[in-house]
């Protein structure tokens, strides 16, 4: 039952032009434009190409995971969530299905950018290392999934795209996805390290170079997951109570 629902959610996302543009095409184009030719320079112990590859993979995966919010807000607007609520699908399964679909469609975003890295910029890793890099990024995106659900229940369908666009542009910028954080002044760097996205990319880069993100990163991500998860749960409950 939930299997069919999740498959249906994934299928819908693949047919959504917004997903195709922001989660698949844009990261790939940005990597090809800014990262592909930088395989001889190094940054933070890896090639600049690999560095930007992880940034763009994170950006694409983040768009995918965050798209949950737009889907929820849209379905609230057209009353589709109400139609589903009078079936045997529980409210939790509804949210879980949306979250699962968000992570599932993040996989192609990662794979495409990784393939570009391998083919265009000689980023050569073992299969296990590739897998670990991808999984690290996905796991670290949990707070973003929670934020997506929260926004989905708080925002109206008309404004959710604008809010989403603003939020993830800001998060990407402050997460060092567009500009490496090494160019930021110290006080900005303190803010960057208190926010989750820097650590998502960091989880990917560390996994790529055979290390791991470290306790500070895990702690920041866990705290944000707890805060945003609580907000999402509250918004969800309030929404279910008032219909």
């Amino acid at each position: 039952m939930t299997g069919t629902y999740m498959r249906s959610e994934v299928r819908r996302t693949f047919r959504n032009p917004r997903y195709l543009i922001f989660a698949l095409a844009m990261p790939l184009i940005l990597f090809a434009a800014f990262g592909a030719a930088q395989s001889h320079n190094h940054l933070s112990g890896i090639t600049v190409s690999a560095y930007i590859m992880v940034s763009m993979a994170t950006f694409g995966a983040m768009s995918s995971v965050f798209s949950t919010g737009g889907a929820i807000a849209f379905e609230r607007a057209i009353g589709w969530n109400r139609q589903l609520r009078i079936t045997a699908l529980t409210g939790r399964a509804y949210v879980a299905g949306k979250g699962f679909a968000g992570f599932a469609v993040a996989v192609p975003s990662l794979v495409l950018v990784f393939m570009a890295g391998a083919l265009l910029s000689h980023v050569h890793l073992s299969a296990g290392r590739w897998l670990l890099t991808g999984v690290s990024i996905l796991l670290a995106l949990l707070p973003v999934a929670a934020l997506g659900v929260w926004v989905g229940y708080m925002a109206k369908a008309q404004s959710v795209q604008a809010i989403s666009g603003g939020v993830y542009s800001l998060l990407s910028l402050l997460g060092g996805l567009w500009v490496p954080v090494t160019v930021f002044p110290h006080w900005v760097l303190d803010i960057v390290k208190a926010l989750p996205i820097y650590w998502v990319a960091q989880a990917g880069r560390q996994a790529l170079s055979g290390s791991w993100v470290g306790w500070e990163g895990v702690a920041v991500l866990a705290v944000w997951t707890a805060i945003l998860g609580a907000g999402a749960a509250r918004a969800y409950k309030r929404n279910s109570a008032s219909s």
Partner: protein
Amino acid sequence: MKLLTTTQPPTTSHRRSLQGAVHLSGVQKSFGQTCAVDGIDLDISPGEIVALLGPNGAGKSTAIDMLLGLTDPDAGDVRIFGEAPTVAASRGRVGAMLQSGGLPSELTVLELVELIRALYPTSLPTDEVLERARIGDLTSRRGDKLSGGQTQRVRFALAIVPDPDLLVLDEPTAAMDVESRQVFWASMREWASSGRTVLFATHYLEEADNFADRIVLLRQGRVVADGATTEIRALAGGRTLRCTLSHADLDGLGSLPGVASVSVHGHGVSMTCTDSDATVRALLERYPEAHDIEIGGAGLNEAFLALTATPGEEIHS
């Protein structure tokens, strides 16, 4: 200004089985300061086709949301086939066409039907759903590429997927043209002929009259009349008495025999009557100065409007 003076007590002519299809008792719901449903009692037996009739803001949608388990009542009890609404819904005993109804744009009609089928413990075969809702020709169409009438047919299909014993329709024909309406009610009739229970909300008296065998009239969150369609028709289809009266008082006029509702505009008085003969006699006795008396047959819709008119502010549900 209109005043409703006559209300029918809930009819007793309908059998109440021990386990009714729908049971609402003392149900109340407010949204902030606004009372949307103000104490509704309603029992519907299996096999009945009931129209929930009332103007916008009468509480129809709120009542329906509560009996589907989409909204919890502030007070009172709601049972569907003896069960809590959410339980009955998840077991597929209730199907519903809700009022606001878009369909996801990324799925085809066939995919939508298959999706909803997968969400119930048991469901009708896909072909049967498509055929009953008359959407066999729309299967490859995306959800956002449908006309208003086609969308409603698809939503009807989704509602009958679990083969429900009770079908709830919230203003099902609101977005339809005349032809779509006829097609819709035809498939509806066919579906209901096998003894299933149907409850539909509408603000068209014609629809209630043509399709329901019982009408429940709502006004301001209360049941103001409940009876067989013929009874309500008699109540609603009376005559209109107009006259000129310099000192009209609503309460006095409303208490005249045979009066269903009164409206006063300056010296002009207009009354909807269930027994205009009795009314005119009593009127001349109590108000000898009344003149320009005119009695005419009231239009069905006009009388319905009088019955459900809101004296105070409108309530939005």
